[in-house]
């Protein structure tokens, strides 16, 4: 047993982190916001150039992918990253171009009370994930209603008014596999966003002075920061374990470990998001400070591939 990053995995993750810091500095998010959350196709191709979408064809594992997506989540890179990655992995011939960044593939899950489509105007293809099938549709053909003020300005959304039609391009085992991998890759991004929220809050607590000392010297603040780290580290362990299991290098209790990862990573991202805002005090509630962006992304990601509560219920059903 060796449940720690190998040297290759460390190099892979560090490489992606420096790429993100250079190509997607956190300051650039406000520019994307002012464009209404539109995706930059050149940037998308640069991601593809880093091999983000073609990882699996290039010999990387699900665990390696999780390390990469943790960094994408940390950088809050917007767009249908998971859907395009899974399309490039599992629907390679039907959706060729997903791997090279030529084709942006989105996915919407049929949901209650409403079905929402993210990044609709930038999508080249849209996948609709039903209970047992995945259908391919032309995004322009779906009747929708635009949401004028999305919760996360980096994630523009439309309400789908109908989701029927399209061509069924996956069912059965592939859909089960897709859901598992989608949940774990999303969990990885939630873990990354959690750690980024911690870094930001800790940096602020070190510099912000009140009552004659940095607020981070107060135990009330310290303990909040420690609690954030605890949630994030536990979620990370669960997410890596689920990925290793999906790679066939652990046990075969796949659905259980995936649900645990998604549940805890979702909890961690929401907790770190809101606690990061609290540590920033009034500044945390401003548009300017990035603390709010981690929380908003956490809300978005929690709704992908089943929220925390749904996964807890799935665990209960298997007990």
């Amino acid at each position: 047993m060796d449940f720690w990053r190998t040297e290759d995995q460390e190099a892979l993750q560090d490489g992606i982190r420096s790429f993100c810091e250079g190509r997607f500095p956190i300051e650039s998010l406000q520019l994307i916001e002012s464009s209404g959350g539109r995706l930059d196709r050149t940037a998308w191709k640069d991601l593809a150039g880093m091999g983000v979408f073609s990882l699996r064809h290039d010999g990387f594992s699900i665990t390696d992918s999780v390390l990469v997506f943790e960094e994408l989540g940390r950088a809050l890179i917007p767009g249908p990253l998971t859907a395009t990655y899974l399309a490039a992995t599992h629907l390679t011939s039907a959706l060729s171009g997903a791997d090279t960044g030529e084709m942006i593939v989105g996915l919407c899950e049929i949901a209650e009370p409403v079905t929402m489509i993210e990044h609709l105007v930038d999508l080249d293809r849209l996948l609709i994930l039903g209970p047992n099938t995945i259908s391919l549709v032309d995004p322009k053909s779906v009747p929708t209603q635009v949401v004028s003020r999305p919760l996360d300005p980096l994630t523009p959304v439309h309400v789908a008014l109908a989701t029927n039609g399209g061509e069924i391009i996956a069912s059965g085992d592939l859909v089960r596999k897709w859901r598992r991998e989608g949940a774990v890759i999303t969990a990885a991004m939630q873990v990354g966003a959690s750690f980024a929220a911690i870094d930001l809050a800790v940096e602020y607590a070190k510099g912000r002075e009140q009552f004659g000392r940095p607020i981070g010297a107060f135990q009330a603040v310290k303990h909040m920061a420690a609690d954030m780290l605890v949630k994030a580290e536990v979620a990370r362990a669960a997410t890596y374990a689920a990925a290793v299991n999906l790679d066939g290098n652990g046990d075969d209790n796949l659905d259980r470990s995936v649900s645990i990862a998604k549940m805890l990573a979702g909890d961690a991202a929401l907790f770190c998001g809101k606690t990061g805002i609290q540590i920033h005090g009034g500044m945390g509630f401003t548009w300017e400070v990035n603390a709010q962006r981690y929380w908003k992304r956490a809300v978005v990601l929690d709704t992908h591939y089943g929220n925390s509560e749904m996964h807890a219920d799935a665990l209960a059903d298997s007990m």
Partner: protein
Amino acid sequence: MDLRYTDQEQAFRADLRAWLAATLPSVAPEPHRNDWRARRAWDTGWQRMLFDAGYAGINWPKEYGGRGATPTEHLIFLEETERMRAPYVGMNFVGLLHAGPTLVVEASPEQKSHHLPGILKGEHVWCQGFSEPNAGSDLASLQCRAIRDGDDYVITGQKIWTSFAHIADYCEMLVRTDTEVPKHRGITWLILPMNLKGMDIRPLRTMEGSTEFCEVFFDEVRVPVANRVGDENDGWRVAMVTLSFERGTAFVSEMLQSMELVRDLADLAKKVTRHQSTAWEDTGLRRDIAHLSGELDALWSLTKRNISQAQRTGFVGVGGNVFKLAYSDLRQQLGDLSLRLLDRASLSLDDIDEWPTGKHVHGRIHALSIGIAAGTSQVQRNIVAERTLGLPKDR
């Protein structure tokens, strides 16, 4: 990253399982929790069996009689012994996991040859004399005084939370040998035989009703200077070396018990009737049980990460503190949940009729101690915030 066990690790597990299967039937039933003489015989008898089979001091270096097992093998050992309900480390705890490892690193050759075999064979039981009424989280402020008089130290003062003091043979003890210097620099580490004149040992009853803890009072107790480990006034550093033995396995048995407890709780919920149905049909309760069960699995994964890190680098990073904090909190939630499920049945510490409720109520009380013992959760949070996150100290 790979969660599969190597051939060597699997062979270790198979040998251990075979030995446990052959050996455990000959182990007598566990004595009553407060029958200390019988418990000592039971705990040390098990230690002797481990010694004879080559499993004593599993993580100790081979040259000092240990097995020299890897952290992963240590984890497998804890997992298998717990799974097969072998006796727990019990009152061999301080000797095997605290005093012994300290002696391995810091003691003189004479001290090692006299004490280490006694611990490994289950001949000597050790206790720990660190905490005092006024030195808890702030351990370095301890005041129990030792004054040099010829070849002896003369000790006067008090220790508290000394588990098994009333039946131990030796105590690893921290005393104040210099009051004039900063608190960490005036402490000395001593081997204290428990049969000296001038000691008064009083059991301290816990809220569980157990008398495992003791208070120990010292009135001019004479301990030979030859019993000192390390230099005079260097005891704080000596006491800290055991931390370097920590490989992320500290709460493994405890956590495995909780994993079983949560499974039992789910089974119990399926039998307890409520509103013409079972408690398991209560979505809130069910979801909470499932959540805890999932968190425990995640802590098991975290443990494997910590152990893997120790195997690679020789030490556990922040993962050890993270584990302790998360586990303490989770254990409390699990305890609350048991009482919620048991409702009025939680008013008894013993099983009621055919309902296996006693262990859940005992477990609930026990849970209250986890976030206090071995560093309170508040101190753990300070450590995480200051050492890992780099937040400034508040003093």
